[in-house]
């Protein structure tokens, strides 16, 4: 029986150790904010990046004296990307911890679940990343969104189409997720309305090993534009395999997400060259603090942040700004201050407006980036571009 005892002791020790570590609470006059994020599960990478960005911003804010002499403290909790866990976390934030504001979450599903809870308890919630249109289309009075909705991610691309590319045919490949579906739907609607012939419109299961069969079909259809909405590394695989198959549309365009990640450059390498993508943000964006954020983040965490990081970083500043203006730290006063927000952040201008079905939605320009010389360059809109776009992209076999 000696062995089992030992194992029991080890387990116990681990448990106790873990618990006591989390008991080290911050000291002094503080204001706590609840932030649910996916720190485990398939979305953990983005949750982690956003966590680091939030913490970086809050450290900066506190170093400058905090908000009205109060230090901001983040209570970041892991939702695992599951809506029922996110619900539980936020219910705890609101009803037990009595936080007057909630910020965060990553996926559309979780953001939506959190929004429902926040609306129920009349506590303001700032959506930072969840992009599905429906989140700010419910007429909810407590839900504010920093990032543009998925249907507007393509605004920059549309304007590029109208002014430069003028494509006649397009093939659309998208990841079968909420984000992928709604973004590509918006693209299809635009194309149908503007006489661009959609020759292929197919959703795929994320995490595929081999896209060559479908890409071969794309090749045989010879579209002017290949538009892809992919998370994760599917983006790199799609590009690498397109190169292998020697597919030569006038241009490859990504719908954000995967095509904007720093990993895309490393992993797709030369296959990423000249690939464009819709994006919300780039380090070259002409917003005050954008470049500083990028550099500081890179220095601190030894990896490059993408727009997700910028969103979280900006959200912390929006929060600080709101609290500064709020009469008191109650949910009602914070909500009033939040709706009056009108500021510039490293992520861009933030102002919550309502139009059409949308309520309390930040409306901002989206950009188009292109990989030129193994770097992301902002190429559209022209004003604010960091480099001139390359269009049409040269054929694979003509490059070197």
């Amino acid at each position: 029986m000696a062995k089992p005892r030992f194992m029991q002791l080890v387990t116990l020790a681990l448990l106790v150790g873990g618990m006591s570590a989390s008991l080290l609470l911050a000291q002094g006059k503080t204001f706590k904010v609840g932030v649910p994020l996916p720190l485990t599960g398939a979305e953990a990478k983005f949750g982690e990046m956003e966590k680091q960005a939030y913490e970086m911003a809050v450290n900066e804010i506190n170093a400058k004296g905090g908000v009205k002499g109060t230090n901001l403290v983040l209570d970041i909790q892991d939702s695992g990307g599951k809506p029922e866990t996110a619900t539980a976390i936020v219910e705890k934030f609101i009803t037990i911890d009595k936080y007057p504001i909630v910020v965060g979450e990553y996926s559309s599903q979780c953001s939506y679940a959190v929004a429902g809870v926040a609306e129920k308890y009349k506590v303001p919630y700032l959506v930072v990343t969840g992009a599905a249109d429906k989140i700010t289309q419910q007429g909810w009075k407590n839900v504010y969104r920093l990032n543009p909705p998925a249907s507007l991610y393509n605004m920059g691309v549309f304007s590029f189409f109208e002014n430069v590319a003028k494509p006649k045919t397009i093939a659309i490949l998208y990841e079968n997720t909420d984000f992928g579906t709604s973004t590509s739907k918006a693209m299809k609607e635009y194309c149908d309305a503007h006489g661009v012939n959609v020759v292929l419109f197919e959703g795929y299961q994320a995490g595929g090993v081999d896209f060559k069969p479908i890409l071969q079909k794309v090749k045989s259809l010879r579209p002017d534009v290949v538009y892809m909405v992919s998370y994760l590394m599917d983006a790199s695989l799609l590009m690498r395999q397109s190169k292998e198959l020697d597919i030569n549309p006038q241009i490859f365009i990504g719908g954000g997400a995967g095509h904007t990640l720093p990993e895309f450059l490393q992993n797709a390498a030369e296959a990423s060259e000249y690939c464009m993508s819709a994006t919300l943000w780039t380090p070259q964006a002409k917003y005050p603090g954008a470049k500083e954020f990028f550099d500081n983040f890179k220095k601190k965490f030894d990896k490059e942040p993408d727009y997700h990081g910028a969103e979280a970083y900006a959200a912390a500043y929006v929060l600080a700004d709101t609290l500064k203006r709020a009469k008191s730290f109650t949910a009602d006063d914070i909500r009033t201050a939040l709706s009056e927000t009108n500021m510039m952040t490293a992520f861009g201008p933030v102002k919550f407006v309502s139009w059409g079905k949308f309520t309390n939605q930040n409306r901002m320009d989206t950009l188009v980036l292109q990989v030129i010389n193994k770097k992301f360059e902002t190429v559209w809109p022209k004003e604010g571009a960091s480099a001139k776009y390359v269009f049409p992209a040269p054929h694979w076999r003509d490059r070197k």
Partner: protein
Amino acid sequence: MSRKNLIGLLPIAAVLLIPLLTQNPYLLHMFILSLLWIVLGQSWNLLGGYTGQISYGHAAFFGVGAYTTGIMVKSGQSPSTAWWGLLFGGLMAALVAAFIGWVCFRLRGSYFSLSVLALSEVLRLVAVNWNRLTNGAEGILFIPAFTQKTYYYYIVFALAAVNLGVIRWVMRSKPGYYFLAIREDQDCAESLGIDTTKYKLLSLLISAFFTGAAGAFYMNYMGFIDPGIVFSIADISIMMILVTMLGGAATKWGPAVGAILFILVSEIFRVWVGSGHLLFFGVLIIAIIIYFPNGIVGTLVDRRTRKRRLRGAEAVA
């Protein structure tokens, strides 16, 4: 009513009183999830624990129940009628179960286990791709009927109680004995006059019905589903097995103990341990399997009966 039965009713009465003690939504949410998982664990237990037919894909039935409800609402019904989903969702799940059971129960061994898994994956892909019916990956959402959690608490409590009652009743009557016989030795069961295919199917139908009803409740309660959530292998199918077997397969209270352990302990780990919580959960699973091979309830009961038997043997000697 015997004293033993009264003692059995005590925890039920205590659970009934919880909303009178706390109205805190967070705590109630935890209890509601626990009760939901009790339904799921008990349903799996009937088929897996008592009848010995291991399903690796019960999410298929959970998802069908949830989607039946969701589609009812989507096609124009008001959220309050979504409660009919508890019935129709369960029935649809049983229908799907009848098909898979009819195909697989003629075969022995792991085929059923694996086919259900395949079924749940195919259904997930159908839910993702059949946009017009299911709204695809964007999922189905509606504003839940109640804002008060107490209602949900009592509804899921009633579901769990009915589920427990039906399973107890079945296990005390002929089918129950047959289920156990099938689990212990299928050849022997056949030769004792048991139509094993029919009774395996019966067990599956009951199990699928309640799993589907639980899915319908989930839709009603959360107000949002998507294919990845309700057809999840890891978060639904495998967790149902875990809940049952960690608590004690083929025991009356095992699934309940497993569900509470699973929901509450994982929540405590999540809140207290932070980012490494799933690691702890994994270690906990391994530890329980090693130290409580028949689950917590099952192993404790085993120990007690073994002690009693030893005492009995001494008395005889």
